[in-house]
């Protein structure tokens, strides 16, 4: 067997392999046996026809074709070993250059190669946003309104009241043939002054203010001209007449923000506890958001310093992955991809090129970098951590509604274990990166010294397998 390799530009390698006549002869015999096994030759039981008879029935071409197939199946691994190539995806037979002697050429995508640049010197300050008192009090105020009790009143509407009314809207001077109706006559409700804060007032900002002073069964017409830069294109610069008939008014009694209110929520005993928990929750949300941004930018910095090479097949795989996710998401909303593409008004080609491809590149570089960083930083997981993570995930699953213990088989458990372990692993890498980027002194991780051997418990065996896979 003679082997030549020619590297190609797109991180693939072309291998030309030449085989000895004897090897080929052996495979021809096997091919003939296979043909006689699969087809019917009169006078012979399946698989019993001799080589010459098969040759006379089906010809040399058929045997050769079969032989090459068998040979590739069996020898491909040896070829890769001999050529000392680590494939990143299944290779393909490019062409059969000659059959006598047999000469084949393959195109083999190489495993992605990552050379980390000087990632140790990448510095990026980490400043998690602090939660301000305003945010907390705003959140509490919202809670207050959502727990408010409504009570019908016989008076004019005031700020903070809940007003039920019928609303219809039509264009003041519609164009010829245009449907004048903007809002169909229908019931609506508003808490006066509630939405002005968050700028979500509907149908236009400051609308609810117009309701102040109206009593039940009052009627009112308001004319509003939309701004030229309104978010609704149809209404830009148009004059619309709204007609309001108030039906009923309810006063909202806000609960006092005190211990009693906190207790009514169940989990808290004092108001201070509630406030702390809100602050912690808000802080957590803000931190997560900031983390995502922080690591996105950090990875961009690291990627700029590193060289990453991968064959197009790997990228395609990633693209398919993304598409699949998208399809899953869409099917949850009863959409399929074609409809979605029509909705956002693109073709599948431009969508692939503009949306999927950059996302795939980003995800791929990130995952490759993560993997390499994990190796470079020698991040290992201790058995206890792994077990804790896996058990935690399983416990979480078992508390979910619709959980059926019968459906949990080994595969599901394995998948969950994999997921839990890889998440933990990634967390470790990210926290290490963070400490590098913020310039904290390097601390040798206490788990690095431990061997990754895990005592085989019920979950341990799977976790170990999962860990190995995660590390690969």
């Amino acid at each position, binding site marked *: 067997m003679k082997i030549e390799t020619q590297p190609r530009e797109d991180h693939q390698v072309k291998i030309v392999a030449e085989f000895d006549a004897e090897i080929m002869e052996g495979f021809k015999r096997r091919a003939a046996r296979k043909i006689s096994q699969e087809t019917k030759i*009169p*006078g*012979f*039981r399946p698989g*019993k*026809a*001799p*080589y*010459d*008879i098969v*040759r*006379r029935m089906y010809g040399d071409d058929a045997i050769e074709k079969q032989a090459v197939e068998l040979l590739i199946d069996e020898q491909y691994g040896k070829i890769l070993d001999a050529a000392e190539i680590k494939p990143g995806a299944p290779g393909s037979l490019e062409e059969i250059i000659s059959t006598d002697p047999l000469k084949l050429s393959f195109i083999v995508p190489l495993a992605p190669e990552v050379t980390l640049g000087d990632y140790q010197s990448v510095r990026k300050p980490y400043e998690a946003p602090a939660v301000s008192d305003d945010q907390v009090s705003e959140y509490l105020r919202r809670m207050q309104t959502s727990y408010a009790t409504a009570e019908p009143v016989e008076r004019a509407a005031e700020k903070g009241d809940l007003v039920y009314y019928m609303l219809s809207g039509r264009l003041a001077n519609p164009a010829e043939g245009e449907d004048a109706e903007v809002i169909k006559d229908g019931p609506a409700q508003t808490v006066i002054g509630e939405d002005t804060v968050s700028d979500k007032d509907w149908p236009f900002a400051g609308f609810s203010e117009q309701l102040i002073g109206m009593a039940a069964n009052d009627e009112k017409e308001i004319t509003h001209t939309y701004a030229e830069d309104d978010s609704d294109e149809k209404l830009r610069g148009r004059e619309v007449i709204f007609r309001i008939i108030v039906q009923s008014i309810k006063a909202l009694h806000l609960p006092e923000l005190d211990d009693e209110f906190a207790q009514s929520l169940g989990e808290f005993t004092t108001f201070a506890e509630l406030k702390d928990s809100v602050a912690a929750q808000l802080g957590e949300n803000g931190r997560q958001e900031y983390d995502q941004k922080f690591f996105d930018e950090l990875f961009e910095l690291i990627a700029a310093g590193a060289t990453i090479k991968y064959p197009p097949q790997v990228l395609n795989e990633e693209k398919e992955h993304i598409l699949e996710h998208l399809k899953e998401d869409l099917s949850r909303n009863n959409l399929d991809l074609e409809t979605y593409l029509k909705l956002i008004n693109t073709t599948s080609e431009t969508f692939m090129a503009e949306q999927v491809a950059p996302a795939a590149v980003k995800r791929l570089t990130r995952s490759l970098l993560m993997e390499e960083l994990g190796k470079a930083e020698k991040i290992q997981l201790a058995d206890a951590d792994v077990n804790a993570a896996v058990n935690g995930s399983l416990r979480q699953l078992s508390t979910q509604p619709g959980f059926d213990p019968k459906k949990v088989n080994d595969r599901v458990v394995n998948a969950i274990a994999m997921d839990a372990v890889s998440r933990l692993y990634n967390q470790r890498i990210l926290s290490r990166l963070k400490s590098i980027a913020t310039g904290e002194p390097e601390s040798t991780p206490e788990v690095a010294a431990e061997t990754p051997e895990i005592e085989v418990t019920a979950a341990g065996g799977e976790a170990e397998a999962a860990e190995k896979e995660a590390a690969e």
Partner: protein
Amino acid sequence: MSTIYDVLRRPLVTEKSNFQANRLHQYVFEVAVDANRTLIKDAVETLFDVTVLRVNVINVTPKRTRRARSRRLAIRNAGYKKAIVTLAPEDRIAIFEGVE
């Protein structure tokens, strides 16, 4: 009375005849029903230029079978005469051994 040129109808190539040809130097033909050992020996010796040591002849009886489409209809396939020709050890007949 047939001549030696219409004695041999066709070679019979089956798993069994293949074994006989390879191991026992016996070659199997379907022959005319009115042929006899002498004629078969002459025919094989003349046509294939070999030495025949022995000729065994058997009348293969017609067998009852059923038609493939209408399974009720029993039919009979034709019988034939089969000759098993033993050659001298150094001789061989090429048509039994694949493409020449």
